[in-house]
């Protein structure tokens, strides 16, 4: 018990420091342009009481789930294909890496022109952000697969599907979770950005409307909500990843 408290103290202290800093900003800024932590939370609670808020959440959520599932499905399959075929993988990887470092905003007009406005554009944005990291991480995981596992499978005379499902997939599972975790964050980002341009609904749209009106309070409230959700989900997946890795640890 004492150990848990000792572990929690430093992060809690830093969180407190952050909140104090925020409060200071609020005090120092002109005429309550930046709402204080307390005001922000109060507003968020009020917003969560409205139907409109949850409609927005549902809208964003639906697009996000679609984007994540598509990113994972295509990303894992593509990553496996590129990982298993060395020459193809080596040729395609630089292209994917280049795409990853490209400011995707550069391609937004293209997506909008191709998909129009609405759900499909949002999902496309999400997939655009989430697909490549999942692919690259899956491919990496496969190429780092210990060769001795494949040789053992060969000696045990396993069929190709047995090798893929019973050896390769379990071996790279921790990396798949890592890829999903990153794909999760990026797909969410993509969907939110998509909503800023291509939708009249959703949290992204709510945020950009508030931006247009100069309504910092609302922006902060939405931001806090998204941050809390993202951090919670990310931490949960991180814990899962760590517990999986411990099984494979101590090499």
């Amino acid at each position: 018990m004492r150990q848990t408290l000792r572990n929690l103290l430093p992060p809690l202290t830093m969180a407190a420091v952050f909140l104090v800093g925020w409060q200071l900003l609020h005090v120092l800024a002109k005429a309550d342009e930046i709402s204080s932590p307390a005001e922000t939370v109060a507003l968020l609670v009020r917003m969560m009481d409205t139907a409109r808020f949850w409609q927005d959440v549902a809208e964003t959520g639906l697009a996000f789930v679609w984007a994540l599932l598509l990113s994972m499905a295509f990303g894992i399959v593509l990553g496996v294909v590129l990982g298993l075929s060395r020459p193809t993988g080596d040729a395609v990887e630089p292209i994917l890496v280049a795409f990853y470092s490209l400011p995707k905003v550069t391609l937004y007009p293209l997506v909008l022109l191709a998909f129009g406005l609405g759900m499909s554009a949002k999902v496309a944005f999400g997939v655009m952000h989430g697909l490549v990291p999942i692919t690259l991480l899956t491919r990496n995981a496969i190429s780092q697969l210990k060769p001795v596992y494949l040789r053992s499978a060969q000696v045990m005379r396993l069929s190709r599907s047995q090798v893929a499902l019973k050896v390769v997939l379990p071996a790279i599972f921790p990396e798949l979770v890592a890829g999903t975790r990153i794909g999760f964050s990026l797909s969410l980002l993509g969907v939110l950005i998509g909503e800023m341009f291509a939708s009249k609904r959703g949290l992204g749209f709510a945020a950009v409307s508030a931006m247009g009106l100069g309504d910092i309070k609302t922006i902060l409230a939405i931001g806090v909500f998204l941050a809390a959700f993202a951090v919670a989900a990310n931490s949960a997946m991180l814990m899962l990843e760590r517990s999986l890795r411990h099984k494979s640890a101590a090499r």
Partner: protein
Amino acid sequence: MISAEPVANIGEASGTVTARLRGVTRLYGTGSARLHALGPIDLDLRKGEFFSVVGPSGCGKSTLLDVLAGLNPPTDGSAEFEGRPVKGVPDGVGVVFQEDASFPWLTVEANVAFGLQQAGVDAAEVERRVAYALGFMGLRDFRKAYPAQLSGGMRQRVCIARTLVLQPRLILLDEPFGALDQQTRLIMGDELLRLWRETNATVLLITHSLDEAAMLSDRVGVMSARPGLFIELIETGWPKDRDSRIVADPRFGELTGRIWEKLRVETMKHMQSQGMGHS
């Protein structure tokens, strides 16, 4: 090697040949950059014998094992097991690798059962064989543990158990104890002898340790530096019920000395080539 022991104690008295290599050669690459890694190798493995291959690093010992196991075909020459040419991994061959091949996502029990289950053996038989192998390798107390919780030596036992369970007639080991400390190696050597006696399998052990080869084997094949060729075949004449305490026998020193006499020159050749060439 003059031995006072009767010849009948070396492997099976009949001396039937269970695996045969003829002119096995391995070349890598093409054109002017062709690397002659191994051979030509001729070898007759007698059924039930314990045969070790010792040689300097990079002499192609592992390649030899790959050819015999059907993991990699030779560039030239032929390999035969139980009278049939080796194409792919033959039935009845088991391999233990140097690196830890235990699957970290499965328990010890599940690891050992894995090969059997994938081969479609029925559950009752799997359970029986797994229980036997676990007991034999001293893993019964650890059946529910994960490999990550075990020491290196224990993990190799898991790999050996996983091979044992498939009832191989030829067991190939590629420097299986390379990653372990000396004392553990000696104990594991004893385990290997126990396994060999119990299964009556033919064993081919690849090692860079002269002691190990001299202590464990019926015959030792000394390999030259690359390209690997057998430069000496030594009969040890040890009784079948031997163990690591054989180190006290003066003949052990003679054998080791004889192996080193041949090996020393080859090892120096190898080190020179490493220093001058690219690593």
